[in-house]
């Protein structure tokens, strides 16, 4: 359950103003001026129909792409102007994708260690931490398996463990349950909420599922590249999920 409900005085993690993203030299506008604030410890769900720009917004928050216009700050620092965006991606945030994006030629244990090469850890430290993370997501018995040998839910749990590799304070999740059946989807949601609750991780989750969005402390609804509404909930609960 998401019990960390921040107040207005809680520091801002993300601050976006007039955020635009265009493709094909301006022919396609994915974001048409988004204003957004995400506070420390919040669980923000971004919803909307396919093509509304929610995944593009998450990519900009994760510095996977640069905005065409507008300002986007992470704890007061401009993301597009970061001198070392790789450090931000590896240490400040963890990304969880709908399609898992695990490396097929590496085992579960190795996949989780991949981001740690930027963490300055020794070989033994990397391994120990990866084992610890995989055990925390219930995959301690799957360390030497390859992604192709896992179920969709297990793959997503590996991806979550990888996202936590360098101890980020923010997790950006793009339709993390989109490729899963309802039982696995529920387990993944429980895991993300547990992270949010136990590790005080700020969670920004993109979903088109309003049931999942209902679990968040705040839901931002997008349409045609714009934020069209915001809803806050002071008592979000996994029980709300159908």
């Amino acid at each position, binding site marked *: 359950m998401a019990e960390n409900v921040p107040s207005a005085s809680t520091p801002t993690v993300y601050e976006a103003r007039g955020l635009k993203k265009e493709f094909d030299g301006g022919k396609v506008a994915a974001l048409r001026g988004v204003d957004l604030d995400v506070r420390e410890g919040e669980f923000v769900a971004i919803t909307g129909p396919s093509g509304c720009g929610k995944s593009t917004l998450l990519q900009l928050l994760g510095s*996977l*792409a640069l905005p065409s216009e507008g300002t986007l700050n992470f704890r007061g620092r401009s993301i597009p102007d970061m001198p070392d965006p790789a450090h931000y*991606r590896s240490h400040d945030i963890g990304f969880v994708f709908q399609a898992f994006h695990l490396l097929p030629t*590496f085992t579960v244990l190795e996949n989780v260690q991949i981001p740690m090469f*930027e963490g300055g850890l020794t070989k033994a430290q990397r391994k120990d931490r990866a084992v610890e993370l995989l055990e925390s997501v219930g995959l301690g018995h799957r360390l030497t398996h390859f992604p192709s040998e896992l179920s969709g839910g297990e793959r997503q749990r590996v991806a979550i463990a990888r996202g936590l590799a360098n101890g980020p304070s923010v997790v950006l999740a793009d339709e993390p349950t989109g490729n899963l059946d309802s039982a696995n989807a529920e387990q993944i949601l429980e895991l993300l909420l547990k992270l949010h609750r136990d590790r005080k991780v700020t969670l920004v989750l993109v979903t088109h599922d309003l049931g999942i969005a209902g679990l968040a402390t705040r839901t931002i609804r997008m349409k045609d590249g714009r934020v069209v509404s915001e809803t806050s909930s002071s008592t979000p609960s996994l029980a709300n999920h159908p």
Partner: protein
Amino acid sequence: MTFFTIVTRGLMRRPVRTGLTLAGISIGIAAVVALVGMAWGYEKSIGKQLDVIGIDMIVSNMTGGIMPKTFDASVEDKIAQLPKIKETTSLLMQLISVEDAPMIMVSGRKWGGFTWHQLKVVEGRMIKDEHEPAVVLGRLAAEVLKKKVGDTVQLDSDELNVVGIVDGGSVVENGAIILSLAVMQKVTLNEGKVNFIDIRLQPGTDKDAVTETAAEIKKIFPEGRAVKASEVVGTSQGFRVARAMSWSTSILAITVGILGVMNTMLMTVFERTHEIGILLAVGWRRQRVMLMVLCESALLGLLGGILGVILGAAGLMIMETTPAIKGLLEPDLSPRLLIISVIIAVVVGLISGLYPAWRSSRLSPAVAIQS
């Protein structure tokens, strides 16, 4: 898991393609080892021969061709008068096809000269006098020509008796047919002509005196040139041509190797765009992605280099036993050549990986991950 694990895993994704690329590099490096090994071996063999005989300087007219032009034998008497000269002897040498052997050194030596002294008879006897129509064969030459004492050797239109087999202490000497200068001049229709004068200097002759002696020889014999034995190889046009040919062929082989590795690494980067996108998305720096690609290509080079050195060395050993080469030269398989060849292979790998590495580091994580 280490960074090296990631690098090797990248190469093992496509084992057949990696294997074929390794084969390409190794053939290129094998060509370098074989060709350069032959050229260096040739130089080393000549150097060893001069050393064994104890020659300090050589006078010849090296303009054009692999073997020097002939000149009047009387030049030797004039040179012998110079103050720093201890001893001289003259030769008429030709590299010719003899019977079934494609190329063999035939060395006519002035009777009584110091170039006879180091020859040890291992079978039969030495030539009796300068007019005896006979030859002695170096051990390797006897093997190549399949001759034994009592046989005859056809030189031009003359048939000469093989009276002995000798050990000359170097591959060049052992690969030669040796006879007296007088008989050689007669057989090759070069009466009164020689093409080498070998010189021994007075003990303790310093570098300046050697230079001075060379200048005085130039005055006596303007068309010729006197060089120190240690410089013979470097100043010989034939050797220079052989060296240039071996390196230019090697460069061609290396270029083919570079293109092969570059093609493989570019294919790898194209195929792994998605994977590289993931690495960038989870926080890998662009430099680390570049390093990964460069390490993969360098590792390809290193493995190809090691394989190529083994192939090249085996090739040289086989070539050494062929009739065309046996007795003419002793291929150089020195650690220096082997190390240089492996270094070349690694550099080839690194150069080939530069563009693919740069390209991979330029990918946008958002675009790459969706590919």
